[in-house]
């Protein structure tokens, strides 16, 4: 819902207020440090968007768009940080998405750090034998040396994963689900309050 709120925001002042609220909520949830570490990835992306909009529109639009993007990323960051992958997966199942699709999502999430580790290993191995992989224009041709091993290892990994799942009965009929978080009255009322705020907010922003 917070994501929708960011989309609905029109006025620049409110966007900045949102940004402040988000910044203050981070330490409350105790995940400020983790965000700062991942800024290394977020910043270049936002910078790129900023430059592109600056070239095609004007400074104000560029700034607004960048802050909006930052807010969006922070919100989704909070979502993935505070709720476990299986929790999100189970919620998706509750919405009615079939188990196999949810499983694809949760497993993909689980392997993000592993693939990151693999990328680092490959880069280390290639640079150690003279293939420069630092992000520079003259190294562009060398990146095949990163992509090929990564691609092939991912195929091998997915094959082994399929074996691991097969040997533990994936795809058998009559699968049970453990620890569903049943929605309580509290959940429903919180959802209602959130929705109420969202409608109010949308009306106030656009009215």
């Amino acid at each position, binding site marked *: 819902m917070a994501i929708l709120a960011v989309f609905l925001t029109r006025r620049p002042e409110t966007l900045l207020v949102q940004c402040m609220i988000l910044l203050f909520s981070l330490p409350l949830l105790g995940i400020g440090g983790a965000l700062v570490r991942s800024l290394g990835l977020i910043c270049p992306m936002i910078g790129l968007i900023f430059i592109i909009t600056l070239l095609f529109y004007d400074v104000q639009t560029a700034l607004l768009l960048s802050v909006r993007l930052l807010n969006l990323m922070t919100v989704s960051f909070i979502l993935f940080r505070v709720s476990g992958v*299986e929790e999100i997966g189970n919620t998706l199942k509750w919405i009615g998405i079939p188990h196999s699709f949810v499983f694809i999502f949760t497993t993909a999430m689980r392997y993000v750090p592993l693939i990151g580790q*693999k990328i680092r290993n490959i880069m*280390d191995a290639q640079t*150690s034998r*003279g293939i420069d992989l630092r992000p520079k224009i003259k190294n562009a041709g060398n990146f095949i040396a990163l992509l090929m091993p990564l691609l092939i*290892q991912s195929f091998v*990994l997915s094959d082994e994963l399929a074996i691991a799942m097969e*040997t533990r009965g994936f795809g*058998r009929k009559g699968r049970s689900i453990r620890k569903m978080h049943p929605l309580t009255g509290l959940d429903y009322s919180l959802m209602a309050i959130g929705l109420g705020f969202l409608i109010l907010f949308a009306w106030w922003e656009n009215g």
Partner: protein
Amino acid sequence: MIRMKNIRYRYPGTGWVLKGIDLSIQRREYITVFGSNGSGKSTLGYILNGLIPHFFNGTLEGYLAINDAGAFPVVGTVLQNTDAQLFSSTVENEIAFGLESLGLPESEIERRIKEISERLHITDLLGQSPMDLSGGEKRMVAIASVLCLRPSLLILDEPYSNLDWHGIRQVRSVLREIHEQGTNVLVIEQRVGGFLRDATRCIVTEHGKIIFNGSPEDSYEILRRNHLVPNYPKRCDSIPACNDPLLSVRNLSYRSQKKEILKNISFEIKNGETVAVIGKNGAGKTSLVKQFNGLLRPTDGDLFFQGEKIKGKATSQLATDIGLCFQNPNDQFFKDNVKDEILAGARAIGKNTDHAFYTICNIFHLDSILDKSPYRLSEGEKKRVALASVFVMQPKLVILDEPTVGQDGRFREVLASLLDELRTQGLTILIVTHDLEFARATADRWIVLHDGRLIADGYPRELCRDEYLVRIGAMIRPEEDEELIF
């Protein structure tokens, strides 16, 4: 319980991998299957657990019967690659996955998770992510995730690979317990170790056939003859090392994400020496050698190579002076033939290595495979190609990170003699390993790392009997080493 008669199998598009296997498994057995890379031992495991013919295509011939009154699953499998085996976000969910697949009710699932985690002593790990565990712990969780399904036969594919002596001891004692409590255990390994003493039967495979099937006591002779126990060559007389240091490390410290990985390390490596860096997994060995060619930069202290500071030089430029070869050869293959693969690094920095190329191909016996695709090689060949691609740059110092992981005894012997040959040509070699037997066969000097500190530096023979080192777990006496049985 299981009977196999004249089983033959081939994968689509290959020759026969299994050429007539006769095998029967009784109740309450602990079987070890040894074989070198490519001997068909993993394929044998796939037939036992039904992946062949249900998952893999190919041609299967022969007679196989599995008689068991018990419930599904009869056979549980623990794969070699724990990263593939453990795909959930927490250990608890990992164990639950198989139980959910069986469709058990929630209360039963909770009960079994509790039971299995107590049995394998992993109760503290339940809430953690499998990504954050040590090698030994991952292996325990992998075993738990399969054992909770209560299979009557538990197959483990190379459960000891990539573990240090501490992890090996952990897994060994758990497997012994599991067997004593009534589950059949079948361990598939290419390395012989102390766990052979726990086994009730030993099987040796070679070229898709069973060449030995008998008691562990009688197997020693054949294991040696088939190089499953490496028979390391005697080393040539050592050439006295020159006195001028090639690499000096002064008060080096390294921190990453507020964690101290390396603490105040100082030592020197002289021209022509062969040194082994020893330590358990996680002691900081790899972090240390990554400093030498600039993959990591020290937070404190200095590094000198031939009297010059390493600081500020790009890693890819240092490759002609300092070569570093990592554990997994698959991390670096991207060309479609071996020759281009070996020369890729040299070409990238524009170094002419034609002469060195032929010498290296000769030393590493690569002449016959130069036109093959690197992906289609055996494990030992892959490793040789990866090593050659580092050596062809003619570095003065070569660092090998865990060169023996995933390699069979025969390759270890070959590698030891290769290193000896290169050493006599005056090359300085640094071997990072937890394989003490290999380190003993190749290095004249050991540097021991423990918890990010350099705690010993000296002759192997003295260090492996050092009371203090053994007590804190940084070293193990040869007679207690789980990897040695002779």
